[in-house]
């Protein structure tokens, strides 16, 4: 019996795996796969479509419109007309000034939470999303403070009125 056990013990020792080579492989492979992994996450912007059943109980005193044209962004109120025009910079839309203007409008009318973005047909989708981010109130390029949190979260989309910018510049 003793002899049998001794033999079995010796047998088990022999069966032990040498994992060193495997560990070396893993040490290389894990960081490599982590580098390859794409840390992008898909999220969505929900839209308020006109006529989606949300009743306009009482129209707020400010009906904010952000008109995106090829060369500028115009902030206007449906009743008062143009509030501010923001010319493009060389790099494209002046998102920072747009955000500042929207923040100052929001401080004057804190109860307003909806806005309409009106676009010309040739505006590309990325610009739409960037402007929408700004109007919603999430700072476009992650400005230091979350100052712009929740400006006008209920965003609708529409067509920009024809003509080049309404009132003269």
């Amino acid at each position, binding site marked *: 019996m003793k002899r049998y056990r001794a033999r079995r013990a010796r047998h088990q020792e022999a069966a032990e795996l040498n994992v060193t080579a495997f560990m070396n492989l893993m040490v290389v492979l894990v960081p490599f796969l982590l580098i390859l992994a794409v840390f992008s*996450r*898909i999220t969505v912007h929900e839209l308020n479509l006109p006529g989606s059943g949300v009743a306009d109980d009482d129209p707020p005193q400010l009906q904010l419109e952000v008109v995106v044209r090829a060369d500028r962004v115009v902030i206007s109120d449906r009743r008062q007309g143009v509030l501010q025009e923001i010319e493009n910079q060389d790099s494209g839309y002046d998102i920072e000034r747009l955000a500042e203007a929207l923040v100052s409008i929001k401080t004057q009318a804190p109860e307003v939470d909806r806005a309409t973005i009106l676009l010309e047909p*040739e505006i590309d989708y990325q610009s739409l999303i960037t402007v929408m981010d700004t109007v919603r109130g999430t700072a476009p390029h992650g400005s230091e403070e979350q100052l712009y949190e929740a400006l006008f979260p209920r965003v609708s989309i529409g067509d920009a009125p024809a003509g080049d910018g309404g009132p003269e510049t």
Partner: protein
Amino acid sequence: MQEIPSSRQVELPESVAETAPRETVIVHVAADEILVQDRPLASTDGIREGSELIIEPLRDALSSQLNNLPPAARQQAEVTILGDRSIPYDVLRRVMATCTEAGFSQVSLAVTQTAPEGGDSL
């Protein structure tokens, strides 16, 4: 949260939006063609040339998707548009109009979330 297939042909615009996508019908608007649930339907260039607001093949495909939904879900039917960042608003507008025409009352636009520079994402 829904697993949205990342597609080679569609480069989503970047945004800081944080709403997670839900299980919905998906419309891909790539630079060259439009697909519903990965089935190609129309070419994007053809749509740009045409002038009609409603894209017929897309509407038919969406209507049949709507019929596949359980009756309770039809009232609040949702659709997610995965649009390439380069497509003009003109095309997007027609796709959205077609979605509402087909009976989808909730439209979401899919974007790639970018980390705000200050904080870290994920």
